[in-house]
């Protein structure tokens, strides 16, 4: 639903050195463990000559062990109006160091950077090579010149999982007049740093390959890397300021936003009739947001100032489309016409939460949303969505540090968090086992928070699509026939109600003396994370939740309960599980709640958490046994 705007940031830039190629020499065996490839040497040399002249040289030697390892090769360079590729070439060697092939610039493939409907001027030169055998070693060298200094590539001491690193280093030389700065993240003892006059080096050696494990946090949150930037930089001919967030925001407002706000009198008039006498900022914002949602659509057009300047508000108004910047800025401009303040806000949009790095002022982020200040809080609006309810942020931009751009004061703030019980689903189920063995289900579920986020789209589905959806999603019950499905979306309360009524044919063999069935027929939560002999990575519960279910189960008269599970409570730092079971005559009542708390934990707590989930799963799987006796 949401679409990022693509920033052409060259992540792993590279360079030449005139030292002898030494890739045929050996590497420690330990690097090969779990590795699809080994980065034998990665050398990046960046020369910042002035705020509008930078060259980046890269030399990257990588030994690839199998097809899966090809994704680490990264033999490509982007280019655009401001960036030219001076040199790009590669040589391929076999296991014993004999040259297999030389790939010259003209043999690199030239392609536009387009995925789906994206419209941009950016292009890429990339290496296309079919390995004949493994292992192979690829020596890739490139050199680019750019007038953009807004994006100085970061250095990643550890780039990815399943990649061993023999040596990786970066050197940055800068002219004394540029105000150079850097920010180290997760840098431990393994990284060596050398500071000299107008130059800085980082390097790392012999890093074993890491493995992606279940529930690992984002790579950036624990992989070592260094960010670089300038206090004054150039972005497509515009000089930017990054001394502090306030000056950065003022610059951005001044150069990228200020002259885009004009709105036609006709549109203002149209909105006036919709707003009427309303004075409340939030209510006006809601009217305007819904107006924008009904009028526009998301189209990724990334053309102005390296993709950073939004389309003019009046063009969005006229054309009815734009990217996240354009649609957000359009909404902001409309609100401004009614004196409602709002903030153009830069964020990393991703289901995995990612903060803007607060103490490093630079171009960051990949997405833009709108913030409406109201009663000392900020209401966040996703302007690229035509269906998102007003004021609901969802899991694409929630709970993270973002930059609000304000002509008066720009600053880093945190977006709405959906914690634990905020994400909840209440289920009321009436289930009856009929005399013919069919089971009749009557479910009512109300969901909120992130659970609601994953479900509110159901409102838009046709009856046919809903039937298909529930047939595939209620997967603990077979042979379902749906009688009715009703979806009620209460946008004001940000909640969705699902009412489903269905029959599971031949659920039980009614002639049997004994019938066994799960006690939780509505929503069993049985996920258990994978087991690891040795858990290496920290782990993260990205978002918590609360599921509360009440199930009333009726059984046929000629059966009695032979066995029924007992109540249980499981408490832990990760959450709480409570279930109570009672019965009276032929009616069984099952109540249970699962609360999971979000958080990041150490690798050594993983087994404990796994045990917690295992206990829950075991409880959720408990059975009742009915008997004709």
């Amino acid at each position, binding site marked *: 639903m949401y679409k990022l705007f693509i920033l052409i940031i060259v992540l792993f830039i590279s360079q030449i050195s005139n030292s002898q190629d030494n890739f045929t020499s050996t590497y420690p065996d330990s690097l090969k463990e779990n590795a699809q490839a080994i980065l034998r040497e990665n050398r990046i040399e960046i020369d910042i000559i002035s705020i509008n002249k930078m060259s980046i040289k890269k030399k990257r030697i990588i030994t690839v062990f199998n097809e899966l390892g090809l994704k680490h090769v990264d033999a490509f360079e982007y280019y655009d109006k401001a960036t030219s590729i001076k040199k790009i070439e590669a040589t391929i060697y076999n296991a014993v160091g004999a040259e297999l092939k030389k790939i010259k610039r003209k043999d690199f493939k030239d392609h536009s950077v387009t995925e789906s409907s994206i419209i941009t001027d950016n292009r890429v030169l990339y290496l296309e090579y*079919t390995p004949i055998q493994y292992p192979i070693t690829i020596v890739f060298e490139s050199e680019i010149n750019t007038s953009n200094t807004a994006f100085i590539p970061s250095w990643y001491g550890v780039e990815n999982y399943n990649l061993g690193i023999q040596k990786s280093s970066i050197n940055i030389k800068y002219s004394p007049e540029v105000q150079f700065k850097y920010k180290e993240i997760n840098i431990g003892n393994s990284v060596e740093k050398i500071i000299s006059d107008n130059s800085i080096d980082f390097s790392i050696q012999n890093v074993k390959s890491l493995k992606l494990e279940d529930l690992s946090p984002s790579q950036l949150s624990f992989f070592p890397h260094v960010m670089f930037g300038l206090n004054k930089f150039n972005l497509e001919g515009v000089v930017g300021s990054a001394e502090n967030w306030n000056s950065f925001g003022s610059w951005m407002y001044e150069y990228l936003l200020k002259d885009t706000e004009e709105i036609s009198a006709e549109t203002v008039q149209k909105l006036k009739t919709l707003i009427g006498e309303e004075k409340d900022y939030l209510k006006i914002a809601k009217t305007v947001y819904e107006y924008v949602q009904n009028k526009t*659509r998301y189209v990724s057009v990334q053309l102005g100032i390296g993709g950073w300047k939004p389309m003019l508000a009046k063009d969005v108004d006229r054309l009815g489309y734009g990217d996240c910047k354009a649609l957000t800025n359009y909404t902001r401009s409309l609100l401004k016409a009614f004196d409602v303040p709002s903030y153009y806000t830069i964020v990393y949009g991703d289901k995995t939460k990612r903060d803007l790095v607060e103490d490093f002022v630079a171009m960051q982020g990949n997405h833009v949303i709108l913030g409406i200040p109201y009663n000392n809080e900020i209401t966040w609006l996703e302007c690229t969505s035509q269906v998102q309810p007003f004021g609901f942020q969802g899991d694409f931009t929630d709970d993270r540090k973002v930059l609000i751009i304000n002509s008066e004061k720009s600053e880093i703030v945190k977006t709405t968090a959906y914690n634990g019980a905020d994400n909840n689903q209440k289920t009321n189920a009436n289930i009856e086992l009929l005399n013919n063995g069919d089971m009749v289900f009557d479910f009512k579920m109300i969901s909120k928070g992130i659970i609601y986020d994953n479900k509110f789209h159901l409102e*838009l589905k046709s009856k046919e699509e809903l039937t298909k959806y529930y047939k*595939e999603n209620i997967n603990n019950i077979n042979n379902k026939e749906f009688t009715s499905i009703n979806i009620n979306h209460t946008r004001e309360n940000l909640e969705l109600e699902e009412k489903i009524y269905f029959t599971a044919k031949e659920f039980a063999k009614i002639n049997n003396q004994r019938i066994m069935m799960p006690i939780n027929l509505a929503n069993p939560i049985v996920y258990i994370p994978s087991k690891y002999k040795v858990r290496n990575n920290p782990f993260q519960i990205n978002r918590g939740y609360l599921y509360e279910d009440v199930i009333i189960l009726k059984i046929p008269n000629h059966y009695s309960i032979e*066995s029924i599970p007992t109540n249980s409570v499981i408490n832990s730092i990760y959450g709480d599980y409570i279930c109570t079971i009672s019965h009276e005559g032929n009616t069984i009542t099952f109540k249970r709640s699962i609360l999971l708390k979000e958080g990041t934990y150490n690798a050594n707590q993983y087994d404990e958490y796994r045990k917690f989930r295992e206990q829950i799963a075991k409880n959720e799987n408990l059975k009742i046994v009915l008997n004709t006796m």
Partner: protein
Amino acid sequence: MKKTIILLLLISSQIISAQKYEMGKVTKEELEQTTHPTDTSAVAAILFHKGRSFFEYHQEKGFILITEVETKIKIYKKEGLDWANKEVAIYIGESEKENVEFSKAYTYNIENSKIEKTKLKREGEFDEITNKYWAKKKIVMPNVREGSIIEYKYVLRSPFYSTFPDWYFQNSIPVDYSEYKTQIPEYFYYNAHKTGWIFPNEVKSKQGNKIILTSSERNTSAYINYKTTFNRDEINYIENHVTYILENIPAIKEESYVNNISNYAVKVQHELSQTRFPNSHLKSFSTTWEDVAKNIYDSENFGSELKKSGYFEDEINKLLLNITSKEEQIKAIYQFVKNKVKWDNYNGIYCDKGVKKAYNDRSGNVAEINLMLTAMLRHAGFEANPVLVSTRSNGISIFPSRTGYNYVITAVELDHKIHLLDATSKFSTQNILPLRAINWMGRLIKKDGTSITIDLLSKDMSTENTTIMSKIDEVGNITGKTREQKFRYNAYLYRENNNDLSIEQYQEKLEKKRKGIEIDELSITNKNDIDQPIVETYSFASNRFVDLIGDRMYFSPMLFFEQLENPFKLDKRIYPIEFDFPFKDNYNITITIPDGYIIETLPENLNLVINKEYGAFKFIISNVSNTIQLLCSLEMKTAIIPNQDYETLKLFFKEIVTKQSEKVVLKKI
């Protein structure tokens, strides 16, 4: 009198319908419509889609193929807004290029109960040079929202008249009216082929047309200065017109167990079969499958490449020096090509850089690799021939066409049997082709250029044997050993998907797949010995398969191989069900029960055969004292099952799921 009325009615209704399908005639009623009348799920619908392909003669360029398309789309829902963006790809790789121009592009909305019209301007048109060969023209329609109607026209001009555009009557949204007209000069013969489960109405006619050729001469004699005379030639010719019309075409929707849904889309495709220009010989391109094959065979980039052998002779002679068995010779050559030349992931029936260069570069496209393989087998004295194939993504070539094929494999005869080989995958073996290449029928071309069809679908059963020896303890924990033997496609797919994983990575993957067990002592044999089955053994432990309730234990004897869900959930099926290959899964599960327990109930045995011999399911359970043995097998004998038998198939799997869910009950003594 009556007749006249009927006639009048006919005429008037024609006028009405004609108007309905003209651009610029958007009605309020259409704009106010909120859902599609027959498909309430539709996010948008194509109200009409009209195309006309015709030829224009240019004195310098010759005939140009022009295709005009007019489209009117209604947007019903916000998810349908993307239909307001359109892109057309054009070929720019040669000196003669394609070209496309959009025009008459408007968005219609209701504004204050009046129809408002917004024109697409230049700012909404974008050109993209995708790469050396292809470019795109993109349009982004202005002012589009829920309820809008958009219209646009584009004209595609192409010098490549041998590649006629395909016309899809069916789309992923409903199409209310689709019309396609071809106007083809008598000099060209195209085969028109229709696919799909409904056919368009077709009207044919002929019409005269003419080409005017002008030339000029300048006279520079001493008497008459600089006078130019013009000559004018007129050539009259006949055009064959065909109009295809289809109305109310439902949306085509993805379903599981379909290799390529577009195989089933309703469409018409044109294939150039002959050209016969005045004062020139008849030139045949393709009319029958035999002709298609012959044409491909006669091409420089196919037949001539196949005939080359000098580049490999020495090495092949050396390779075969000590191999006497015919079967071993085939294997050796097959393996030699796989090691020598790697596939560069490009499909094609023609060589690109040529077999010799591919051999020396050690990489090539599929034609280079498999023509080389064919040539080597021939050199070694085998009856070997290339087989033209259409990959799954290319769809099924049901009519004679060169573009219907995009892949080449090799057929070799041994003991009067034909074996299929494809050296692009290092794990493929005789008759185990990569899945991309198994797509119904291929065409085998013999040395003399004649050809025959050949079934690509594997007829041999791909078996998987799973043996479990296990034991339940007194608290319901289960431990045991599993041995899985994977044959043919099961082995091939295992190798394609897992061979690059380390044993540890594979173990994690396997634990995710076999939910609920912890795996230890995992070992895999024959990973690289592709003629042998994959054998996977491991020990396991689990506390999740046995319910200990009161003094009884309950468990499904299938343990972690229980099929929990029916793969067929939907009520109706329009398309055939396509399995990749015939398969048979055998399970032999032995479970020793804990001391102090006796068997109270065992599920009943079941022997289930699906009609028409499609498949069978067996479930035989027995016990000897405290050991339970289950023999269970599921067999699908054919890879493709017609949709008419969907109900039966669904029921068949329902019975399987039910049977496998039945519990063994143990009772404490």
